């Protein structure tokens, strides 16, 4: 059933370039020779490695254990030998432990035992056990999200996929609608909510149809960036506004990403730990854009080679989407749970222009989905007056990039705001 959502006025229409691999089915990339798996692929405490160098592991075996309440287990994505535990700088610029496993191409695989019942506690237990985190990019452990402080009434499924280029959620929705619906039902049972709403952008009519056919409440969201941002999505689907500084559960809502639901389905019904993710490899700089199912820990260089190699004029590698993703210095990075894209941008697509003076045009403030005033935040951040910057809403920024995308002067607004936020947090 298609239900009518609310309109949200603020945001931009970005050139989505999804056509590069919109029609490409998800392909499973063969596991690579060597995987390097980070122990910190989520928000919260890094997991603690429980294997030693020289150990034999099989696919699906836990190699690092969650430490503390907000953390997640990490599993081996191939069978083979642990050859080392390295420190690598991750795309966020943090030094993190990576477990190196050499693939020996055995086909063994560990599965959890069948669940005895499908009650809330068991499902949450399985989701925690399987190391599932918010796969849309945030990486917040899903089990924590499933145990809110106050009772919820709605589960919102984020199928907006508003980031340009990315198609992985869309392909998953097309190819595995039944599995996702089951995932929704399991998580709804875990949360004890009756009401499930799927929010899908209007540019994916096939997906909207598939879900409404299956009896889900679907909201056709307008095609606008950033529709997939939690607060905007909640507003469009339910009309509720999350107060500033509050979380979705404060308004009785839990938002889950398509990939998270698919992974939860696999964990609950197929007893699979999280070892693979679906990501989009795209951009004009790669020979063949693809939607891939890859093993966690696969080197980005292998992915590039599998997609036919990069072309000459690549100027930027990006992990994630182009609006919020991280710029990579080189391809010596390894797939993490939260990766949803690997983009190779050429100088034509990428933003390489030098910033000039802000002309005070107001475009940034006009479109900011959080209704902030980025030009003043930047002005005061550059002047070192962080308290003033806070007055214009710095702390509420979701770093969506809408403001900088539109800025005719190419001001690095997001960078300034992020810096200001860090400074403000430091002070506290």
């Amino acid at each position, binding site marked *: 059933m298609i239900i009518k959502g609310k309109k949200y006025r603020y945001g931009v229409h*970005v050139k989505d370039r999804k056509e590069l691999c919109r029609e490409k089915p998800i392909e499973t990339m063969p596991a690579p020779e060597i995987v390097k798996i980070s122990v910190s692929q989520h928000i919260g405490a890094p997991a603690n490695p429980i294997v030693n160098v020289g150990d034999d592991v099989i696919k699906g075996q836990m190699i690092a254990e969650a430490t503390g309440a907000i953390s997640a287990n990490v599993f081996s994505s191939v069978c083979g030998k642990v050859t080392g535990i390295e420190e690598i700088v991750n795309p966020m610029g943090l030094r993190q432990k990576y477990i190196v496993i050499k693939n020996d191409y055995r086909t063994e695989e560990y599965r959890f035992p069948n669940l005895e019942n499908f009650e809330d506690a068991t499902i949450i237990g399985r989701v925690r056990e399987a190391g599932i985190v918010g796969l849309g990019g945030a990486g917040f452990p899903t089990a924590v999200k499933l145990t809110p402080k106050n009772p919820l009434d709605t589960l919102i499924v984020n199928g907006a996929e508003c980031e340009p280029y990315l198609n992985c959620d869309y392909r998953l929705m097309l190819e595995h609608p039944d599995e996702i619906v089951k995932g929704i039902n399991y998580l709804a049972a875990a949360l004890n909510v009756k009401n499930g709403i799927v929010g899908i952008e209007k540019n994916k009519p096939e997906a909207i149809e598939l879900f409404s056919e299956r009896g889900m409440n679907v909201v056709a969201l307008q095609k606008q960036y950033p529709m997939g941002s939690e607060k905007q999505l909640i507003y469009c689907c339910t009309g509720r506004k999350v107060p500033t500084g509050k979380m979705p559960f404060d308004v009785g809502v839990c938002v889950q990403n398509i990939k998270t639901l698919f992974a939860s389905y696999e964990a609950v019904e197929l007893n699979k730990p999280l070892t693979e993710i679906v990501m989009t490899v795209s951009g004009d700089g790669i020979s063949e854009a693809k939607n891939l199912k890859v093993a966690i820990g696969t080197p980005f260089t292998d992915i590039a080679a599998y997609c036919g190699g990069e072309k000459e004029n690549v*100027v930027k*590698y990006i992990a994630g989407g*182009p609006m919020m993703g991280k*710029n990579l210095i080189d391809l010596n990075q390894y797939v993490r749970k939260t990766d949803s894209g690997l983009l190779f941008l050429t100088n034509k697509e*990428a933003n390489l222009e030098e910033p000039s003076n802000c002309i005070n045009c107001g475009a940034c403030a006009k479109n900011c989905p959080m209704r902030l005033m980025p030009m003043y935040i930047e002005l005061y951040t550059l002047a070192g007056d962080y308290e003033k910057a806070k007055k214009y809403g710095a702390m509420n920024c979701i770093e969506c990039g809408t403001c900088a995308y539109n800025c005719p002067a190419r001001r690095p607004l997001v960078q300034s705001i992020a810096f200001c936020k860090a400074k403000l947090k430091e002070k506290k």
Partner: protein
Amino acid sequence: MEEQLKFYSNSPHVKGRRTTREIMLNVCIALLPACIMGCVFFGWRALMIIALSAFSACAAEIVYRLVMKQPFPRILKEFDFSSLVTGLLLAMCLGSQVPWYVPVLSAIFAIVVVKMLFGGTGKNLVNPAITGRIFAFLSFGTIMTSGWVIPNFASSSVVSGATSLTALLKDGTMPDLLSLFLGNVQGCIGETCKIALLVGGIYLVIRGIIDFKWPLIYIAVTGLMSVALNKFDFHYFLPSVLSGGLILGAIFMATDYTTTPNTTWGNVLYFVVLGVITAVLRQATGIEIVSFAILLMNLFVPLIDKFIINRPFGFKREKKVKEAK
């Protein structure tokens, strides 16, 4: 093989199409019809003044930067045509009878003193073109306001010696509305032909560079205020809207990005007050006052932006959320 240097930057990694340069060029394009009509009505002298003003404005920016020892390639790369806009706008509000040094000196003043000394594009406190005009008005007084040239095809109904606006305000002479609209009345080069200005304005609205609401509010408020000041005689509405530099000012000058507030409500306040001030000052002084009004309001923009700010999403809705539960 040497590693090729990749670009490294914060998100977002893609960009919109709009750039400062593109915006400024679009404004120039929007000014073209008015320039052409000015030349048609006022002949080659108008062309000369437009050219002189535009050239001096651009030259002033480049020379200023050279004096500041900026490398020439960088100047070229950063040249964003905003000086050209200033030059053109300034010419638009000069009469075609002024001697050659008026546009040159005012353009140099506008660029160097009002814009570059404040830090270049976007840093100016007030609109350079308007300040240039006021500079000319104050320094060359009588040259600016006397000896208006009657356009080539002027109808006989025009009173010579004063613009129709001055006539209207001083002795209540109703001008011929059609010629006011078409532009064959005496006045400044770019101010007279309302059709050309409207075409330019519509172009800007279509390109999404200005919001049609603001000029409309400004013009409407000015018109209604004039009506109110003249004992609610609605005959005053159209003449006061169509005469003088109101339409030019509303479309091209008052909407200047740098000198307008950045919030919707800030803009509403700005344009409404601007309209009121324009009408009141016009009535009180009996001269063409749009530029003074805009200049005055420009000074209040930082203040407006300080007190009217956007509330972050979800800011004051806490109560509503509770109700929903």
